[in-house]
């Protein structure tokens, strides 16, 4: 057992976990942040994507110990109170989900994509960049539409800040 200290959604936490614990299990089983999903458990589907120090990574492929000292943001940490993050709002408005299982990972990856491209995105780029996130409903069309919509909204909201 080790005590892993990290920041999750802006709050400092210290969690006692076995050394073999994966970050996704620290989040789900120890902090009850069950918005982050385990889809494949083989690093392929991306349902478990969270931001670690601002980078979208697969939390099923990182030990909790590796995350010690980092700042982790999960799907629960991106809205401002009742106001959805522009990416969440765009997914809702564009019906960017069917069963919703992949959605938390899609949204966390998509925010990272918009950050990396500074909002300069087109459809082929979004499709290529989302290759690490699998939607088994195969509802990609509206997901891509939502990401492109959000890229515009995030640019506007950044400009307003």
């Amino acid at each position, binding site marked *: 057992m080790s005590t892993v200290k990290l920041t999750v959604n802006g709050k400092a936490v210290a969690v006692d976990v076995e050394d*073999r614990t994966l970050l996704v299990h620290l989040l789900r089983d120890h902090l009850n942040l069950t918005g982050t999903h385990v889809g494949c458990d083989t690093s*392929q589907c*991306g349902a478990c994507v969270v931001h670690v120090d601002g980078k979208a990574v697969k939390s099923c492929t990182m*030990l909790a*110990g590796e995350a010690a000292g980092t700042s982790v943001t999960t799907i629960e940490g991106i809205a401002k109170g009742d106001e959805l993050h522009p990416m969440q709002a765009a997914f809702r408005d564009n019906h960017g989900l069917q069963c919703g299982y992949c959605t938390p990972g899609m949204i966390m*990856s998509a925010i990272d994509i918009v950050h990396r491209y500074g909002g300069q995105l087109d459809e082929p780029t979004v499709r290529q960049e989302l*290759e*690490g996130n699998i939607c088994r409903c195969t509802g990609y069309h509206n997901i891509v539409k939502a990401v492109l919509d959000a890229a515009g909204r995030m640019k506007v909201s950044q400009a307003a800040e």
Partner: protein
Amino acid sequence: MYQTTYHRASSVDEAASLFGKSSEAKFLAGGQTLLPVMKQRLASPSDVIDLGKIRELQGVELSGDTLTIKAATTYHDIMQNADVKKAIPAIVHLTSVLGDPAVRYRGTIGGSIANNDPAADYPAALLALGATVKTNKRSIAADDFFKGLFTTALEDGEIITAISFPVPAKAGYEKMRHPASRFALTGVFVAQTKAGEVRVAATGASQSGVMRVGAIEAALKSNWSPSAIDNVSISANGLLADIHGTAEYRANLVKVLAQRAVAAAG
């Protein structure tokens, strides 16, 4: 995953010393292969020694005609690095078609070559560019480093610290990506050194892991152009065969991808 003990090393010396004190330790860099393998219980190290936060293993240096990438530099950081883009853009391209964005944030060049998966991309780059692998004990030429499937010249507890690439005159990499795993069904890296030597390496093709392709090297040596390879025939003997492609299919891929790589290299 079986029980293990996690250690975070702050220096290469500390990592080596932790390894010496453990019964069956494994080094962890980005963890994008080791952790999935541990989850499948195909590996059960008593101790996991994290190299990912060691400062001396991070970064890129370009000095004259040598590009040095430190072993724990992530794929993402390699792709973004101005010196890599300037000196060997083929490495940036190879990295951009490897894994997916989330994997590229964590995976490292040192981890890839230490694992030496027969379908990994980086071994082809090292072999074709005639790179040198630096460890905490010695320097190993790429020609002597890769020893077959998941096997390298590394000794127990030896740690890769950096990879040095001579900057080539021309280089290109093309691969047929497996659509699910994104590993190379086959990938070919072609390089022409500044001295005019031609080196070609194929990954995902041979049953013994990454290999040089002498017939294509000879053809390109006399004429550096895709058409120079038109009449080269690659034997299917000793090539991998599985549900994704026969040995003959892979033999043809070696040729076609070499042509595309030469076209990309210009």
